[in-house]
């Protein structure tokens, strides 16, 4: 048929090489991105991830320096080492990004997330929910005769675990902030 004798279904049937070149294992990294707090900056960061097909597992953003108009974006992402390096380099070249830190490789760090969980129930389930909340050091921030809203802070895994326990006890709604993270130590 053609000069190339290409097998049916071969990737060379395309104008691009369709084989994936990344065979490495997927890693999870937490990135802290310091940005100018100007309109559209979050869209630039999110657009980078969606446009280039990177994953976002969690994203939090808030202004941390009101006078300097600087915000801190904490992103939890996953990918092969090559992809993670790309993500950092791509973030770094956004004009309104000042610094990019990979907290996963730059030494020990603390990660915290806040969750609000609404649990509705009566009788023993309600008591059990309160008891477990005590164990998890969750506090009650709203209460009616038939419901609690718990506030819990910790690693995402801790909040996952708490939510799993609350589910059979009447968990009806959950809101989570996403991860905020800082490097440990004086620097």
């Amino acid at each position, binding site marked *: 048929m*053609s000069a190339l004798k290409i097998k049916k279904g071969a990737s060379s049937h395309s104008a691009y090489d369709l084989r994936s070149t990344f065979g490495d294992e997927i890693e999870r990294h937490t990135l802290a991105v310091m940005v100018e707090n100007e309109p559209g900056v979050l869209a630039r960061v999110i657009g980078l991830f969606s446009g280039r097909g990177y994953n976002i597992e969690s994203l939090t953003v808030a202004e941390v320096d009101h006078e300097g108009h600087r915000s801190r974006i904490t992103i939890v992402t996953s990918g092969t080492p090559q992809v993670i390096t790309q993500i950092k380099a791509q973030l770094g*070249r956004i004009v309104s990004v000042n610094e990019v830190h990979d907290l996963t490789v730059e030494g020990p760090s603390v990660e915290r997330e806040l969750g609000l969980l609404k649990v509705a129930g009566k009788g023993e389930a309600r008591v059990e929910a309160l008891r477990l909340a005590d164990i998890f050091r969750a506090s009650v921030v709203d209460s009616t005769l038939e419901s609690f809203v718990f506030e819990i802070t910790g690693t995402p895994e801790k909040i996952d675990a708490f939510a799993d326990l609350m589910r059979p006890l009447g968990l009806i709604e959950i809101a989570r902030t996403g991860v905020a993270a800082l490097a440990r130590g004086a620097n």
Partner: protein
Amino acid sequence: MAHGPVADLVISPCAPEQDRGLFCINGANELKDDRMTRQMTGAKMVVQALKDQGVDTVFGYPGGAVLPIYDEIFQQNDIHHVLVRHEQAAVHAAEGYARSTGRPGVALVTSGPGATNAVTGLTDALMDSIPIVVLTGQVPTFMIGADAFQEADTVGITRPCTKHNWLVKETDKLSSTLHEAFHVATSGRPGPVLIDIPKDVQFATGTYTEKKQLKSRYQPKVKGDLDAITDLVKAMEKAKRPIFYTGGGVINSGAASSQLLREIVDATGFPITSTLMGLGAYPASGKSWIGMLGMHGLYEANMAMHDCDLMICIGARFDDRITGRVDAFSPKSKKAHIDIDASSINKVIRVDIPILGDVGHVLEDMLKIWKSRGRVTDREATAKWWKQIDEWKAVKCLTYRNSDKVIKPQYALERLEALTKGKDRYICTEVGQHQMWAAQYLSFDDPNRWMTSGGLGTMGYGFPASIGVQMAYPDALVINVAGEASWLMNMQEMGTAIQYRLPVKQFILNNERLGMVRQWQQLLHGERYSHSWSEALPDFVKLAEAFGGKGIRCADPKDLDDAIMEMLAYDGPVIFDCLVEKHENCFPMIPSGKPHNEMLLGDASTEGAIQAGGAVMV
């Protein structure tokens, strides 16, 4: 066109009847005071900032949301405005201007459709790292979000296709944003920027910030790490089969970088190949030149890339048209990569010696270190390497079967090359087979002489780009090598060429096909020529005449030289309709998914394939 130095302050930028306000009262001496502030409308700020940035030419198209700026343009003579016929062409023309001069190109378009039409040009400039500044009008601030007439979310739409963009909501911030925009477009890895200016911001009066007051936080690192550069020099000293693989980054880095490249290539005697984007950085007539590499690159260049033991990548980015099959790309080599953009390094190919920095700065240090260490190379081994390369060269991969009945596209370009060589020549191209043939058969001895859409592959790029180049160099010979299909995508620009008396030569290799699409369909899609030909092409000679230009048609190889000479002699825009062989394929070719050493050469003749059933369809 005057490119003279532009004063930091223009004493009387406004027409006499307009408010001369502060700076006329204060007098020239006080104008030099940094604390001095000038009040002016946003529209006037645009013109003032362009002047202060040394802009002499703007490509644009007016509309409701930019009328105040057009009013200011009307009242001055320093900035030449070129009225294009479509906003896409304004951006490509700005690109052509930028690529040929090394200075940022400027385009001015209106809101809504004006801005959306600019998107292709912006993306093109982003992919090829071309510094351009695009100014768009926007509906007044108080109407943004109301789905107003000709409103579009311009900064939202163009966020992924600009290096950076701004929506300016206060007149006081407009001039500083304009200066910042030029800084961002031209610093680091160059690229397109866009400023969206609502109409009320153009009308309102604010304080003008002088260019010299700008202190940008955006300061990309230009100096390379000296340890890494030393590692590279050590590798060069030991290399037995080295190769320089250079790209558009060398040209973007400035004329001095091309000079440094020439110096280091000639001093080491290492062979050099280049991407499509980098042609001209090292002269094609230079002794170390082994031709363009990549999908339609030369056999010797691709074989040398595959078999080298040291690859020195300078300002190129391992594009998929270059690497072919990634896991079989140059398997035996140590790889160094010099790039100003960290995200280009290790993106596609893992390199052993990454050097982050500006090509010019790094080459300067590299040359210094190499010289200080005694100018060592393994002469014996590289001589052997050259012998191998000469054997590959002997394959003569660009050989084609000529004809005395029909013009072969390769022959047309060979004749164009022969008849224009030595002239002050700039070449633009559209995208497709003709583009690859132009890269193969024309030769470039200087940077900034070759304007082609590399990364995005934008059909319709070449004609408006040639207008941009001709505006920058009114007396030069500017030729756009085109295919008829690409050319038709921006044919309306004949009006611009005529209006501004730009003698751009449109050299159309007319095969009545979408040649590259047809080639792929023939080779890879069972000769099913799905929509790759056009049945209703215009009469290009009459078309040229209808616009007021000159049309030349040539179908016989015997007439070709005379016809080309006629084109060159005509002082005005010419459409040259060169009727060429319809089924010629572009070789050599690395089929996708194949490594560099599995190239198809021209002998994989297409003639047998054409005789098959598919020929009936075309």
